[in-house]
């Protein structure tokens, strides 16, 4: 029993880390970071390999990116907000 839980621990930890990495700021903050950085919807969409409309939906909160995209989106937002200071 204890051996089994020890075996399950690392994947569970990985999953928790992935979930944390995919956690996004609020839609309003997403939009604010992008506009403050002077980046258009099209450029953002190109970076994330989605359509500009999709990014707009994420910024309005009408849809949410799935995990892989969310991780990439979060990483980009983090980089931008760090660069913005």
């Amino acid at each position: 029993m204890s051996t089994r839980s020890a075996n399950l621990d690392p994947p569970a930890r990985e999953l928790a880390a992935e979930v944390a990495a995919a956690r996004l700021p609020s839609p309003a903050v997403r939009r604010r970071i992008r506009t403050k950085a002077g980046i258009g919807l099209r450029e953002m969409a190109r970076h994330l390999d989605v359509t500009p409309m999709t990014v707009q939906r994420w910024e309005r909160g009408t849809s949410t990116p799935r995990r892989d995209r969310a991780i990439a989106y979060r990483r980009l937002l983090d980089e931008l907000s760090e660069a913005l200071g």
Partner: protein
Amino acid sequence: MSVESLRGRNFASVREVAEFLGDGEPLDERTVRRAIEQGQIPAVKVGTKTLIPVAPLLAMIQAPDIAPAEAPPAPAVDAVSAAREILRGALRALDALSGYHERDHGDPSEGSAAGQSAPVGGLDVLPLRPNGGTGAA
């Protein structure tokens, strides 16, 4: 491209930074991109754009302004020029090193002229004589 024109902005483009660091004689944009790749200039890539945060760039340029308290304050313009000169020298050295590398190892993406003109490798292909001499003795 002056310090004042960048101040108050969040990001600058590669071209603007090349103009800024060149101070009248713009650096090659590839020099700036190479410096970014090597981590000498911070940048964020978004899609096809490369955004260079202005604040760290100005901090790099204006670092010589931070002088010890007892030292007489240097004129800001001279300090900026000096810092710019240092950075420009470093970037040119980087360019020169890169050119050396491309000459010696032939970078096909950079054209073939540089690779052909370098007589490098000639000695490497000379056959070795068993006696180590010319064979005349």
